[in-house]
């Protein structure tokens, strides 16, 4: 359904020349989207690639809160104070008595807890079934990329894959296909979008580096977002072609700056594609940033002007609603998990398990 541009929200309840109609709060809620104001807590955030963390403290931030991460006797620890820092500020409530954050090392990533330290639980770690639980993927499959925008803006960009045909056409191919369908599944902690394209133009990156000779390919792309962690799975199955699962976290360093410790498991692809595809992240992220960076400040304040939507935006709209629902719940002091984020999501994302045995 298309919506009229620049129509104030009040117009929904007071249409000119007609009787008043009931408010449509959910629809309005989609347009009351101020992602900059959303701060999620009681969750694990990926803050570093495990091999990068050694004895020297690395500095990170989650919502401007300082995180210093290093290893003690080989075990990752995170503190809100640098060991050399002259403490001039009080300890926050997000750390224990020693100023330490709860930390986990899993999937080759260091995860730090943001929220009540007593609520930290490995059961709240997102399921990433295409990554080896103990890490160990080669360094060329990982990268750190930053986005000059709010993390939810970056994730909304990701879950609306129709942008890829235009913004990333030189990497993933243009918009031409025989058919395109989008399905959305969600619970209180996750949202999953499945995009299926039949006979879509072959992605140039696959044409050049995977040797695909056919003019078209069938594509099944899945985006699954763990709402609290701002962490996403982007899994593409290309036929003919390769399976490309990507861990795409969007850690909010501040409310409008995002850090991505990406991991792309291309273990099953050919030599060239395996090495080149993870590097495409640098190019693709710049292309995304060219839009999300100027977008971000335009979502920092509430506005009566509505966004327009199409049928392809259902997942993005649902993402907005779920995030706002969760934020509202947290605002009311409810930080409980109503759904399990660590349950194996292989079936949900349609993972070909035979390719990812660990």
């Amino acid at each position, binding site marked *: 359904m298309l919506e009229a541009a620049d129509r104030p929200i009040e117009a929904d309840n007071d249409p000119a020349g007609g009787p008043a109609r009931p408010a449509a709060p959910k629809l309005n809620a989609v347009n009351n989207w101020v992602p900059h104001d959303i701060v999620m807590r009681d969750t694990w955030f990926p803050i570093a690639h495990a091999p990068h963390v050694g004895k020297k403290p*690395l*500095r990170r931030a989650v919502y401007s809160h300082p995180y210093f991460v290093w290893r003690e006797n080989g075990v990752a620890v995170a503190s809100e104070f640098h060991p050399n*820092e002259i403490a001039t500020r009080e300890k926050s409530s997000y750390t224990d008595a020693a100023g330490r954050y709860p930390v986990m090392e899993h999937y080759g990533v260091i995860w730090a807890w943001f929220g009540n330290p007593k609520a930290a639980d490995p059961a709240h770690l997102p399921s990433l079934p295409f990554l080896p639980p103990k890490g160990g993927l080669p360094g060329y499959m990982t990268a*750190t*990329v*930053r*986005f000059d925008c709010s993390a939810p803006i970056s994730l909304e960009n990701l879950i609306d894959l129709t942008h890829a045909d235009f913004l990333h056409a030189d990497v993933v191919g243009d918009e031409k296909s025989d058919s395109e369908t989008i399905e959305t599944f969600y619970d209180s902690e996750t949202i999953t979008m499945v995009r299926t394209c039949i006979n879509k133009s072959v992605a140039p990156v696959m044409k050049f580096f995977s040797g695909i000779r056919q003019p078209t390919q069938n594509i099944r792309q899945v985006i699954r977002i763990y709402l609290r962690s701002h962490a996403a799975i982007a899994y593409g199955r290309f036929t003919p072609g390769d399976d490309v699962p990507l861990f795409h976290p969007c850690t909010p360093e*501040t409310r409008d700056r995002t850090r991505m410790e990406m991991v792309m498991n291309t273990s099953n692809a050919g030599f060239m594609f395996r090495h080149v595809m993870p590097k495409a992240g640098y190019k693709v992220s710049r292309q995304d940033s060219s839009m999300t*960076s100027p977008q971000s400040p335009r979502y920092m304040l509430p506005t009566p002007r509505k966004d327009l939507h199409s049928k392809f935006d259902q997942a993005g709209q649902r993402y907005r609603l779920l995030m706002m629902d969760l934020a509202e719940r947290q605002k009311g002091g409810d930080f409980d998990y109503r759904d399990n984020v660590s349950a194996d999501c292989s079936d949900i994302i349609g993972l070909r398990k035979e390719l990812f045995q660990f």
Partner: protein
Amino acid sequence: MFMATRVSGTWWTVALSEEVTSKKPLAVDIDDQPVVLWRDNQGMARALEDRCPHRRAPLSLGCIRDNGWIQCGYHGWSYDGESGRLKEIPNMKDDQRFPPVYRARAFAVAESGGFVRVSLDTDTVPPAATDHAMPLSGTSHVALGQSAYLDALYDAPGLLIDIKGVQFTPYLMSELHEEDGLLVMERNCQWGKLHWPSFASAEFPITVLTRTHPATGETELTLRDDAFNTLLTACLAPVPAARGVTQVRWRAEIGKTLKGYHARRLGRGTPFAVREAIDATALRVVKPSVSLHGHQLVGAMATAADISAAA
């Protein structure tokens, strides 16, 4: 635009201590208010409205007399700096007693840390004093209003200031927030021009921490490395002047522990400068980001102050 709260009693840093002498008056302005500064024979900095109440000539075009009074260059009327009272009219011989209304408008002056500050409100309590004056200093005049200047300082500091070898990135370690009545943020930076692009950098070797006064925009800046060594400290005072110009006085000093090639280079030549010319093409396309937080925070602080005053 970021609007510093122009409350009464605001102390504006209008000069460096070394700019104010007993040799020659110094003309400055705060918005459209012209001010003349000089030192009297006790070495005290004085400030009057830069307007002779006789025929409105700028007092700054006059001179400073041996007794510390400022003398208008038009008809020679002399004024005492502390009170602004007229002390002498040439050729009046012994009849030099004047009614109290014969006075120039005097402003409160406070000097500290190598800066001279003026308050347009004479009843204002002076700011906390410090004896330490940072050795490096300068004054720049920028053709940009103070509000827009502060916006740019928050969103794209590299357009306004130059720290030797330092490249500012768009990425923040801490977004703008209120801390002890100041607006505080920390920005990630890189050394030199040959480095991995900032968007793809996992670590940054240095950060710039800024603490900005919400009323004046006066900003204390600290450059430090990833081991928390302070490499450089600076204080910038952007003051709104006439015709939409911003006068920026600054002082700076190098830290005691300079580790690494780039840090040691700070100790040679000119480590810090405030640009007079701004790249308007680049400035035009800077998207508002941190400055939007600034607006919200200043608004919230002003509201809280109003509530507190009402209570």
